[in-house]
């Protein structure tokens, strides 16, 4: 059974946001979800841990139907969610208390509670700030505390909705590293992002358009669809843009080339024979 199953899911506010959407995500996958504003990314994410329920169709998270109220508690202990703005996710005035909030609600008792908090803060490299006030941390540090708060609940699935949007380069880099490390431990990652360089780190990229899947595949494959991505108002990663500009200059460039390979190719043009 895949970790996440969307079966013909439709959801509307005034307009249709998810439109007969079907897809599956397996345990341990790292999936990046990209799409223009209004393509349904956030609504999709909120269906995973039953913050929203499908109006038509069905969502199964770790095999459990999100429409069944009896499943909510189990689903949310398996699938944790990190939002864009770290400031809206802080509940306590001490970092360690903030991280403890989730597991406490799962009725985790001391000393297991403290162990979980410590381990979660270690994972996001924030142990040295355990006793600090979240208000005194940088945005990137606060976002790492938000992630720790989810990790302390020991979920199998981590859903992140543009976690780097409010952060600087260093903050984003830190979050990316943590996401990759968590994925290597077998956690399923669903990362919603506007940054194509970030999406390129995933094993699979899903492009949403008007609540439907427009593209779904490995990054190199998805990013080779330059025209589709442009039509959807999305950026291409730098390597694709450069490959395109060099092709326009008359250079022969293979399709869906990675940045490393592109660099090697450029070097070969200048190597002394």
């Amino acid at each position, binding site marked *: 059974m895949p970790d996440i199953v969307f079966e013909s899911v439709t959801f509307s506010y005034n307009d249709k946001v998810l439109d007969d959407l079907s897809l599956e995500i397996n345990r341990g996958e790292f999936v990046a979800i990209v799409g223009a504003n209004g393509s349904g990314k956030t609504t999709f994410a909120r269906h995973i841990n039953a913050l929203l329920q499908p109006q038509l169709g069905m969502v199964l998270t770790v095999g459990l139907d999100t429409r069944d109220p009896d499943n909510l508690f189990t689903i949310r202990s398996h699938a944790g969610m990190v939002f864009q*703005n770290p400031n809206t996710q802080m509940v306590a005035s001490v970092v360690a208390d903030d991280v403890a909030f989730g597991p406490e609600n799962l009725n985790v008792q001391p000393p297991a509670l403290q162990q979980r908090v410590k381990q979660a803060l270690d994972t996001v490299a924030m142990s040295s700030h355990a006793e600090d006030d979240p208000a005194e941390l940088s945005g990137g540090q606060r976002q790492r505390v938000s992630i720790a708060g989810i990790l302390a609940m020991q979920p199998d699935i981590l859903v992140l909705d543009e976690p780097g949007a*409010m952060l600087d380069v*260093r903050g984003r880099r830190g979050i990316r590293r943590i996401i990759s490390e968590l994925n290597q431990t077998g956690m399923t990652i669903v990362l919603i992002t506007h940054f194509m360089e970030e999406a390129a780190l995933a094993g699979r990229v899903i492009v949403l358009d008007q609540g439907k899947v427009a593209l779904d595949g490995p990054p190199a494959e998805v990013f080779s669809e330059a025209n589709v991505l442009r039509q959807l108002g*999305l950026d291409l990663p*730098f390597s694709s843009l*450069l490959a395109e500009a060099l092709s326009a200059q*008359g250079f022969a460039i293979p399709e869906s080339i990675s940045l490393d390979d592109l660099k090697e190719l450029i*070097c070969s*043009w200048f190597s002394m*024979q």
Partner: protein
Amino acid sequence: MQLVLDAVSYRYGSAAEDQYAIRELSFRLDSGDFCGIIGHSGSGKSTLIQLMAALIHPSSGRVLLDGLDLALPKHRTKLFTRIGVAFQYPEAQLFAPTVFEDIAFAARNAQLASADIERRVRHWMSVIGLDYDRYAHRSPFELSGGEQRRVALAGILVVEPELLILDEPTAGLDPAGRRRLLQVIDNYHDQGHTVVMVSHSMEDIAQVTNRILVLKDGYQYLQGSPQEIFSHHVELHEINLGVPASESLAASLRELGIPLPASLLSVDQLADAIAELRAQPSGSQRVGRSVNTRMEV
């Protein structure tokens, strides 16, 4: 318009704690400048723009608008019609029941005639790409995030401030929304207005600004044109700032001995430079040392 920061420091907390968000900063902004401000979190960017807009005042030093000290209340009369500030996530400050009323708010405060206000709201709605008949009388809260951002910006531009200050204007927008917003800002600058933009995106900064101020711990760390600033890889790296992706690749190619010119700030500039170099007869290529084609980025 000329805005001068003369040895400005800004201290927060008690005097005994002696913590400074801005230290001894001197800086001049002239009419028509498009100035980018970069620096990592906590470097003083947001404090600096609040000082520029006279929302807070220096602990020492002066902020002068056309020679007038903005610490004095009499010099701040109707300042909001001269200096417009868009804070991070300005859509959080939308409040009116309709898009029209939200955009018109500053114009009403400036006591403009109502016919003029309507003309202005129509104009700015068309600039930001929202159809007047369709959107003017809808609630701004029914709009998408990108649309809300643009409404918030229109609400600042409606009084046509000479100086427009923006803190991370494109954060959280999708690529199409980002391009669109940058275009609106760039056009506003092209019409002769002065713009200050704080951004974490070196690509955005390189694309639109003509000068850059780099802050570190409240100090001026570097200042210059985008070409100058982004040739300082090492210095920028030291304070955890990057350079645009094209320049970053160009730098690693230069290191391998390929004599590319300095500061290639866009994909097109990089592709042009590579093509030009490649077109030269091979004997004249001054490749510094033999090129190893297996390398890391």
